[in-house]
């Protein structure tokens, strides 16, 4: 029970920080809309509809990368991770709190990105299955991404390292998400996304302790 209280405290802290600084979410919003505009110019005229859905997913992934890159910045730059690690709370609570706040940021950004996509490209492609795919993939992105962001933030080249760590791991999410949006039978893809989320959430939750301690 106190575990959940700790998680709530930490998540609330991250949300409050973002509310004060107001830099990550606006940047992500602007980035995702810019990316969609660029994709319009990058796509040749006769491109198929499904290809555009793929591009939406690329936009989401890279926007998530942008947000994740900043996830542990305050902690690492000001040495605050030490402060959190010293506290008697379970280290995985730090992970869960960050994951929840990252999830909130992603959802906020997608609330704008999906309508923007519908506006710029083909709105009929964003059905309930596609949205379910996005939501499930968000879980995977937030859970694995938070862990990898913690790893990358310990390195000298953190902005360079995070995409390298992140992209191979989220390929399955991409497959699931695009499949759910494009295929006539999305159940398999959604099920797969759920499986990925479960496996990697457990793995990330269990191993975060080792990433932030010595």
């Amino acid at each position, binding site marked *: 029970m106190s575990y959940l209280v700790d998680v709530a405290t930490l998540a609330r802290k991250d949300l409050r920080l973002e509310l004060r600084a107001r830099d990550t979410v606006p940047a992500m919003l602007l980035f995702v809309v810019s990316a969609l505009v660029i994709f319009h110019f990058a796509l040749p005229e006769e491109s198929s509809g499904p290809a555009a859905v793929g591009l939406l997913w690329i936009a989401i992934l890279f926007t998530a990368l942008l947000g994740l890159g900043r996830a542990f910045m305050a902690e690492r730059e000001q040495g605050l991770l030490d402060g959190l690690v010293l506290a008697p709370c379970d280290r995985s609570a730090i992970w869960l709190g960050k994951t929840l706040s990252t999830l909130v940021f992603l959802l906020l950004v997608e609330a704008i990105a999906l309508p923007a996509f519908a506006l710029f490209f083909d709105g009929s492609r964003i059905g309930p299955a596609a949205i379910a795919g996005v939501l499930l993939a968000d879980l995977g992105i937030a859970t694995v991404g938070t862990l990898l962001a913690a790893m990358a933030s310990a*390195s000298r080249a953190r902005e360079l390292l995070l995409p390298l760590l992140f992209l191979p791991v989220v390929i399955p999410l991409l497959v699931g998400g695009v499949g759910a949006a494009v295929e006539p039978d999305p159940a398999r893809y959604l099920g797969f996304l759920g499986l990925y989320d479960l496996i990697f959430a457990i*793995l990330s939750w269990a191993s975060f302790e*080792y990433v932030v301690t010595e």
Partner: protein
Amino acid sequence: MSTWSRNNGALALSAAATCLLVGGTALAFLWVPQDADQGFSQKIFYLHVPVALTAYACFAWGAWKAWRLLSRRQDRYDLESYTAVHMGIIFGVLTLVTGSIWAKISWGVWWTWSERQLVLFLILFLFYSAYFMLRYSVAPGPARANMSAVYALFGVVLIPVSFLAIRLAGTLLHPNPVINRDGPQMSASMFGVFCVCLAGMLALAAALYRTELTGKRLDARLRELRELLA
């Protein structure tokens, strides 16, 4: 580990590897009958699949050592895990190369997305290359060891998940049925030769692993001594 094994282990493994590989290759090219469907090009199967399986074995060994590091917190497992992953990526690249050659011989293209094993190895190659980038950009110490271990464990979990994803994507990207090479149509003699080659590859991997590990341990010992004298 017995003294004999410690001193001569790598040598014995290299000898075994040489015998098995030379023997296996000879058998594959001279003795075993040709596959009815694919003809001569199928012979590369005796090289490609053992290399792929050895790569998996190396990654699994790396993940096992990583697990030991996290549960026992003993320094030596870090080096062992790193060396195993290093071997894995070497064999992984070999898999991609031999697979590419096979694709060229069989279908005339150097790369095809419909070959699931190749795509899986491409993803793994990206993943484990990032492992080395991670190690390179974090200062050596317990922190780096822990992070590498967690990442190695993620890799091994990623293998089946990616495979599932690729299978799903297969229907999405390429509606053509995938050619099933190592199906149950292997005759007993083919299977026998395959096993010889597989054993040879594993022995080779083990020999290289031992050699590199010894080398790295010597390096570390040398550094320690240099420090003590300084």
